[in-house]
């Protein structure tokens, strides 16, 4: 019995010794790291208004009502599709982070060479939490990036929407291009106009009863990663 008590005492002493030794040899430093990211978010604001024009004057030529032009914000299912197809989104961009932005849709019907429409009262607003810089790209109907053909000292840019080498539409220098490189701080917005025209001087490119479509993609990059 005495021998047994000695064993118990010895084992207990050993455990205490080991525990003490471990307590001396180990230490823990805990690093608590918390990163709260901001977000980049831009959206269209305003109430788009379409105004028919001719020679810088309101209304169609000779006051006629032949064509029509409308501009409105519409909900779209896959708002990033055009930009993604064109390879314009950053490589690490995560589609699931897309915001439910609306699309600005401009529709011209029964158009003819010389017809002109101006869309105004539209803004791009930074509704995110960090500054953004805007990049503007024009895509043709197949979502390929196209380089507009500047004319008249850059006042006009002709656009070939169907890739046939012939330009069917033009936009003036105030359209979209003023947004390029613009930096918007959170809460700030920038207005822009869109002046579209079917150029009479390119009427050989404009076919009757034909629909021409192109896209303008505005990408808001975090300001310090603007390409």
């Amino acid at each position, binding site marked *: 019995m005495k021998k047994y008590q000695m064993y118990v005492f010895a084992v207990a002493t050993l455990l205490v010794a080991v525990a003490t030794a471990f307590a001396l040899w180990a230490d823990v430093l805990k690093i608590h790291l918390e990163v709260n990211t901001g977000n980049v978010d831009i959206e269209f604001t305003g109430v788009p208004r379409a105004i028919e024009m001719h020679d810088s004057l309101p209304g169609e030529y000779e006051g006629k009502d032949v064509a029509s032009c409308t501009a409105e914000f519409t909900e779209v299912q896959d708002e990033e599709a055009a930009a993604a197809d064109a390879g314009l989104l950053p490589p690490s*961009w995560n589609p699931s982070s897309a915001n439910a932005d609306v*699309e600005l849709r401009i529709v011209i019907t029964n158009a*003819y060479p010389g017809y002109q429409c101006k869309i105004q009262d539209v803004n791009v607003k930074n509704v995110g939490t960090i500054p953004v810089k805007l990049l503007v790209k024009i895509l043709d109907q197949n979502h390929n990036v196209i380089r507009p053909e500047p004319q008249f000292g850059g006042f006009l840019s002709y656009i070939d929407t169907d890739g046939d080498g012939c330009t069917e539409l033009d936009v003036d220098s105030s359209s979209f291009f003023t947004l390029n490189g613009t930096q918007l701080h959170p809460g700030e917005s920038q207005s822009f106009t869109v002046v579209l025209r079917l150029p009479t001087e390119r009427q050989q490119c404009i076919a009757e009863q034909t629909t021409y479509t192109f896209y303008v993609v505005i990408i808001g*990059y975090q300001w310090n990663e603007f390409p």
Partner: protein
Amino acid sequence: MKPLTTIAIAMLITAIATTAALMADTLTTKITAKTGTIDLNLQTATRTCGKGATTVTITPTKTDNTYTIQINVNPPGASSDSCTVQLTYKNTGTIPIKIYTTSSTSSGTCTATPTTTGQIHRGDTETVNVYISCTGSCTCTATSTAKSWNQ
């Protein structure tokens, strides 16, 4: 320490990667322009000549927005005569048009008036007169082309 450092670095990298993945947003504007049509249709072609026995043959052909009308005048006995051919066109396109007409002949005279019509709105009609004067058989060719009213 080493495992903890590794975990901390991994967390930092993940946080940076997540941040980079979120740092862009796009807005799209879709612009669609559908063009109208320019078109004309020859509704009627009537003729009036000085002599009732004069034979007039009118042959219209259409290519795109242009009518080419051959008018053959054959007065009796190779005599002289003057005829007026009235060509009535309808705007069958979707935008207002003007019709430009030219005329030519190898003999005699051939004149179209007006050479340029006024504006013809969608669905409306306009008449172009072609005056022909010749001795013996002659052929006048009138060409009418529709163009947008603003050109």
